[in-house]
């Protein structure tokens, strides 16, 4: 059996290579929206922040740090997805006349 660390390292290795391959194909036109999208995706750390805050017997320190972390991450999620969509809506191929 693989330990947790080993499995996680496998996942990390494969996800990094997959990421490199997928991102390489992204059109340079969309590099700015790509960055705001990956930003929103990496705000998945909200999951960790929820676990910290919602744990039974969480100390005040945990709650305060978790609260700030959730706020920061949710700001990123909301603004990240919305602004990416706002930018992408601007990319039009042909003029409508």
């Amino acid at each position, binding site marked *: 059996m693989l330990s947790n660390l080993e499995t996680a390292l496998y996942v990390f290795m494969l996800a990094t290579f997959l990421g490199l391959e997928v991102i390489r194909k992204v059109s340079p036109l969309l590099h700015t929206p790509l960055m705001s999208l990956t930003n929103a995706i990496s705000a998945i750390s909200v999951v960790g922040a929820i676990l910290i805050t919602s744990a039974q017997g969480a100390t005040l320190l945990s709650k305060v740090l978790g609260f700030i972390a959730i706020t920061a991450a949710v700001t990123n999620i909301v603004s990240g997805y919305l602004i990416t969509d706002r930018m992408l809506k*601007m990319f039009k191929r042909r003029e409508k006349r």
Partner: protein
Amino acid sequence: MEHLVHYIYIVSAALFVLSLKWMNSPVTARRGVFAGEIGMLMAITGTLLAHQVFNWQWILAAFLIGTAAGIPIAYIMPMTAVPQRTAMSHACGALAAALVGTAEFYREPNQPKYVLVALMIETLLGFLTFTGSLMAMGKLQEILPQRPITYRNQNLTNLGLLALAAALGVRLVLVPTDTWLFPVFAGLSLLFGVLLIIPIGGADMPTVIALLNSYAGLSACAMGFVLDNRMLVIAGALDGSSGLILSIIMCKAMNRSFTNVLFGAFGQIQTKTAAVEQRPVRSASAEEAAAILEGSSSVIIVPGYGLAVAQAQHKIRELFDALMRRGIDVKFAIHPVAGRMPGHMNVLLAEADIPYDRLVGMEDINSEFSQCDVALVIGANDVTNPAARNDKTSPIYGMPILDVDKAHTVMVIKRSMRPGFAGIDNDLYYLDKTLMLFGDAKAFVSDILKELPVPLAAAR
């Protein structure tokens, strides 16, 4: 439910991969955003349902505040401020990761060694990216000076500081009960972030923003190791590799290495050599420029950061329309590092409704300059400097540039003859075929538009 959440996480991770895959073309990109949103929603809902949630008031309040802050940021922010917003969100993301790491450390310092190692990496990267991104944001917003701030033995001080922080991290892994060391460790990481970014000049921001993006992702990824959550590992690794690729692209486009960007303090050394003798240039009025454009059959516009500063994108779009209506072929040449972040120019021009098939990347457009009648440079400087090709002594020698000097006529809209950001004189301006159009980009383009006579075709 405890088991179900793991399956939900797997689907979320798959959706994140698809989300990035669909970004490969503007046609499918919006579907990508949607996939990302669903993935995120599933992950959050799954997490909340799978565990017994205590302190829900705290979580609810944080969600409300975050949403209330996020919506106006997304809708009110002008497109010219996108680099600042991006830097700000790197700061937020990194802060979240760093704080989760901190809370986890104080909750239970006695964890397996590998967890502690991941935790130290998470907090180190998180805190340094937090302050580093705030500095980058200050520079982009021009609250802080855009020129590099340097002092003696800067690199030595910075590396020493990083080494000290790393040593404390190692010590905390070995003796986790020394919890009092943790605030020192966090403080050093925060300080290092500040010192890392202040010597970096505005023109290097595209690389730095991409690099900070990568760090923020890796910090979230390390959190996945700490909390034993594979989905976090995947999402963080995707973000980390995305930032890495973008920074490599940016470095290549400047012919520079990572170390050179981070420790080179570009723009500082060159100010000494910037004392150049006065050379004659040819300048032209808006009327003359309009006549030349009118008489051409193909025009390539080269936008740069100056366009963003002057907010000239909508005026340029009017010029684009006016010329296209006359049957003149107009394209835009986009250098990878034009502007202050990867893809900055594309977003600005798309905002002004310029169709994206008119925005052409450096490698594809360079062969077209020799057949083009007019190259119109607006707010770009170093990326058009032929010295990068010819002058081995130039600090930008070897940097890939747009071959603007191969066009029949070159017109450059510029405020004055002051050298550009890197402080390097641009030989392009002294060529016989070059006309300097002195003035503010937005005002000058308006003047050209006024001088263009109403075409017969418009009367249809």
